[in-house]
Structure formats: C-alpha cells, structure tokens
C-alpha cells in the first residue's frame, strides 16, 4: 500500500478540496442528465447485454472488424504485448521519416508507455488534450480517467506554460491552443485511442470535447488508432445506446461535443483526411481477464470515470494513490487482474491491497453505465488474495479463542497494555489503524464486580 502517497493526499487540504469539488461536480452533472432518460436503467442493461454478447463472441467480432477495416483501405495490427504495439509505431515513424507525432488522450497508450518509447527512439510525441498536455509538461501521469489535470491549480498550469502567474484559464487555454495548432499542422502521424470499434463498419469511434482527437485523426498524413480488443461492438446502430450513456455518465453532457466515426483513410473524391489508417488491436493481458467467466465483465468498461467520481475512497486518496494508470474502483478491479502481465514486463505493482481498500458501499456498481458488478468482483478478488489467507487464519484463531472462555481469560493482559507492540507482524496492520481508548475495567471485570 503506497502509504506515503495516500498520506500526502490526505494532508493536502487544497488537493482534498480540488478532488472533492471536481468529482462532486461531475457526479452532479451525471445525476441531472441521466434524469432526462426515463429508460436509463433499461439502457444500462442493454449496453451490458451488448458488451457481454460481444466479449463472448470476441473472436468472431474481431475477425469481422479486421475484414471491414481492410475493406475500407485500412491496416490492422495485432499486438500481443505493449512492446509489440510500441514497436509498430516507432517502426512506421522511422519508415515514413516522421519526427513529430501528435496524440489525443488515450488511456491505452498510457498503459503501454508509448510516449517514453517514442522519446527513446528520438520521436517527439506531443499530447494535445489540454489536460494531458499540462500533465506531459509537468512530467506526471493522469490523475483521473477523464480529467487528467484535475489536481493542478491555475498557477501551476501557468508555470508549466510559461505564462503570467495570474493568467486566467481562458488565457492559458489560448496559449496551449496556439502552440498545439502548429504541432497538428506539422506532425506526420496522429495517434488516438478509440472509445468504440465497430465490427460491421470497420470504424473507430472517438468521443471528446476539445477537437484534438478530430485534429489528430484528420490533419496528419497518417492516423494510427491504438485500442484494447475489448472495445469492439457489433453494429454502428448500437452506438445510439452507448453514446446516450457515455457522456452523461462522464461529464453530465447529453452528448460530448465531438463524436467521430472514422472508417479507413481518405477516400477518392474526399477533400481531406489521412492517407494511411492503421488500427492496432492490443491484448496486453486482456485475454487472461477474458478467460475468467465471473470477472470477464471488468472488460465491459467504457472509461467514463463515473465510478471514480462516486467513490468515497478515490475522493479522499486521489488518483496517485493507485499503482496503475486506471485508478478508482475500476482500477481496483483491473489492476490485480492485469498484475501478472505487468509484472512480466518488470513492473513492481503491489496490487494485492487494492480489493481491500473499499468500504463496499456499492456506489461504483450503481453508477456504472454498463452495469459492471464492481463490488462483487472486489469480493471475488479478496477471496483470491494471498492476504486473505493470512486473514482467514488469524480470524479462525480469534474465533477459537472467543469460543473458549478459559483461554480467553488468559489474554487479559492484552487490554492492560497501553499500546500494542508496533513491531513484528502487527506493525503494518497497526500503521493503518487507530485503536480505540479502552475503559479502565473490562466488561467481564465489571460484571463480576456488580454481581
């Protein structure tokens, strides 16, 4: 458990306020726009059913997707690992002589550390979502799935943008717009993620508010979309359901500002658009999650961030207390399931505590637009955890002591101690917990006295 990181978040009143008010506003927005949909609960179920069906037939839909992307003049790259995905991008950039890449916000590329990889190969990769750009300039990672720079003050933003310390958000945005505008026009490759992959159309769908995903996918000569294989849906028409849910759950908008439905490169007769389109389909541990029938639904996630905004734990400890790029409740269920894959890559994750850092209040499951049963999966992960085995043993011992009054009597000395020893096996346990003040006499002593 990253106690220092958690303590740091708890001890920073400004950060506490920023995270609490931002997540609160997003949650309020969600509540108001979801109320517009009388059939909201049915839509959630329908979205859940489509995701369930698609994942149960994932091989078929991915093959259909590949065929339809190729039919539209695009290229499909199957990447088993993070390294394979990154290598494809760097090799293509080298082949085409590209030195500058623009990127629009994508958690999948964060997951595979694409920017580091490109930098190491001498390719300049510029994040273009305003929040991601701020984070990149600060040398940090996203704080929240949909609001990456949520923890930054305007003064901190002004500093990284070399602006006057009292610059307004409007002025700061204008500075970023001007700098990034040049990058869009000069870049040889634009990289995006994908919110959905549409099997029957060979299309990717990008949902955003700023216009940077539109620019990244339209201005450079080459567009590369990198997406997890779980993002596929069967038909273009299924988007009516998903689009109604996604923006409402994320930011409380009826629809995000821009939804782009892109199939292949520019066609003959079209005025603009990229000349080459490549879709990288990434596994990176997803097939092993898929293999678990019960927890497979973790892959239904459409990355709206609603579970973060409603989580009493995320709202206190913030995005940097989680060991992987996905934070909040969805991070708590994804990270342990991806741990094996990530550890093979040399990551030192310590993910086993995650399923326990939950009050199981159930808010995450209630607001999930695709009805992932996050609390249930947390419980299943607890059952599987090695920590659980230790706890079970301790509980069994405790229960035995409690059922044997004579033995229990022998432990009177425990409560006589002012402080429990904060060493040995109890040290870590105690460092996370405060013991209550005990009364002078125990119940048993008091009982004896009064009799």
């Amino acid at each position, binding site marked *: 458990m990253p106690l220092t990181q958690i303590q740091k978040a708890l001890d920073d009143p400004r950060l506490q306020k*920023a995270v609490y008010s931002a997540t609160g506003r997003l949650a309020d927005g969600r509540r108001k726009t979801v109320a517009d949909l009388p059939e909201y609960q049915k*839509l959630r179920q*329908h979205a859940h*059913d*489509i995701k369930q*069906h*698609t994942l*149960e*037939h*994932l*091989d078929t839909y*991915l093959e259909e997707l590949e065929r339809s992307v190729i039919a*539209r003049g695009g290229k499909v790259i*199957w990447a088993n690992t993070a390294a394979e995905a990154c290598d494809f991008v760097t090799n293509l950039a080298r082949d085409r002589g590209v030195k500058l890449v623009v990127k629009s916000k994508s958690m999948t590329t964060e997951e595979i550390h694409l920017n580091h990889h490109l930098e190491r190969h001498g390719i300049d990769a510029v994040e273009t*979502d*305003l929040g991601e750009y701020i984070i990149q300039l600060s040398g940090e990672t996203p704080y929240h799935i949909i*609001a*990456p720079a*949520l923890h*930054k003050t*305007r003064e901190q*933003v002004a500093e990284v943008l070399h602006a006057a310390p009292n610059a307004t*958000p409007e002025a*700061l*945005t204008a500075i*970023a*717009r001007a700098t990034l505008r040049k990058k869009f*026009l000069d870049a040889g490759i634009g990289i995006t993620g994908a919110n959905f992959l549409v099997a029957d159309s*060979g*299309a990717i769908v990008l949902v955003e*508010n*700023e*216009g*940077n995903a*539109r*620019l990244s996918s*339209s201005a450079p000569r080459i567009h590369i979309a990198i997406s997890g*294989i779980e993002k596929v849906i069967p*038909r*273009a*028409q299924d*988007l*009516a359901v998903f689009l109604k849910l996604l923006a409402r759950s994320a930011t409380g908008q009826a*629809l995000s*500002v*821009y*939804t*782009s*439905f*892109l*199939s*292949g*490169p*520019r*066609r003959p007769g079209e*005025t*603009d658009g990229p000349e080459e389109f490549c879709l990288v389909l990434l596994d990176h541990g997803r*097939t092993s999650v*898929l*293999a678990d029938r019960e927890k497979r639904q973790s892959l239904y996630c459409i990355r709206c961030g609603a579970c973060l905004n409603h989580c009493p734990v995320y709202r206190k400890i913030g995005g940097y207390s989680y060991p992987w790029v996905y934070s909040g409740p969805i991070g708590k269920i994804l990270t342990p399931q991806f741990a094996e894959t990530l550890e093979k890559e040399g990551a030192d994750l310590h993910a086993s505590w995650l399923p326990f850092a939950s009050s199981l209040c159930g808010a995450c499951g209630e607001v999930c637009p695709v009805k992932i049963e996050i609390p249930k999966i947390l419980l299943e992960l607890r059952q599987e955890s090695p920590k659980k085995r230790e706890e079970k043993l301790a509980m069994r011992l405790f229960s035995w002591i409690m059922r044997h009054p004579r033995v229990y009597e022998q432990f009177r000395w425990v409560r006589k101690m002012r402080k429990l020893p904060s060493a040995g096996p109890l040290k870590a346990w105690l460092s996370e917990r405060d013991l209550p003040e005990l009364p002078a006499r125990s119940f048993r002593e008091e009982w004896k006295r009064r009799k």
Partner: protein
Amino acid sequence: MLTRIRAALAGSVKEPPPPVWLDPDPPDANAAAMFAQALTELGGQVHEAANLAEARAILEPLLAGRRVIASSAPLVRACGIESQYSRGACADAEIGVTSADFAIANTGTLVFLTEPRLISLLPPRHIAVIDRAKILLSLDALFSRVPQPAALSSSMVLATGPSRTADIEMRLVRGVHGPGEIIVVIVADVTAS
C-alpha cells in the same frame, strides 16, 4: 491472439446479438425549435431563414471583410459563398462555412458526412447553413436513417456545440482546439427562388 481468445472463451454458446435498440420519433415535435433551443443552451447561435434570400441576408454581415473558407456543399454555394480549399486556407481562415448532412434536434448536433473535415474544425468560428428538412429528432433517428455511416464516407462527425474544455480547475472554456463559436442558419425552403 485469436487462439488465446478462443481458448479463453471455450465452452461459451454461440448466440445472436441483442436486438438493435432505436426509439421511434415522438409525434408532433418541432424539430427546428428543439434544435435551436438545445444549441443555444450550449452556447451556439441559431438563425432561421424562410428561404435562400433571407439566408444570404443573414450571412452577408457575418462574412463581410473576413477571411472565409467554405465547403462546396450545394446549400453553401446557393448562398453565394465560394472559396478554394487548401489546408493553409483552413488554418488561416477566421470563419469556416459548411452545410450539414443532418442535424439532431434534441442535442443541438450537426452531422457531417460529406463535408471536408478541417473547414468546421480549424477556424475559430464555424457557420453552418442547413436545410430544415434535414433536422432529425434524435440520435436514434440518425442511426435509423444512416445505419451504415461507413458506406457513405470515411468520416461521420457529430458536432454538438462549441469546442470546450474544463481541464483547468474545472472552469468551462470554449474554443480550445475546435471553433469556440458556432452559428447555424436554418433554411426552411432551400429551392432556389
């Protein structure tokens, strides 16, 4: 990868997908008024013109003396606006003028299938001249009318209001990468007078 996927799915039963869910249009809705209200709430401006002459009269003062890049959509040409497309011209223009293949009333959305990608994107102000008959009521109506967007174009874009961000202290700022201003002129009768 497909082998791993098939192994992971071993034992699952082949089933048809859940049916497509597209709601039918509610009766008696005034699509143009609904569109205008939704887009105005998002910070856009909406003008209604009875015919092309009225549309031209609305557009003229907006475009006079400005660097304009316009698409070659028939409705844009019918308003007497023409320009030569180039990336440079898009990047340099103060105003981009397009039409829209459809609009969605309940969300205030413009739908581009045949428009160039950059004209409605690079200039800080976007003006769209649209045919009132192309305003659909909902997203469901769009996907009923266009079940296969990829059959028509490499790019279908739904644009709902001005470009915006709230990445700095959750403060709403318009016009971060796309246009910060959107003006839509709805033309009731598009037949040339």
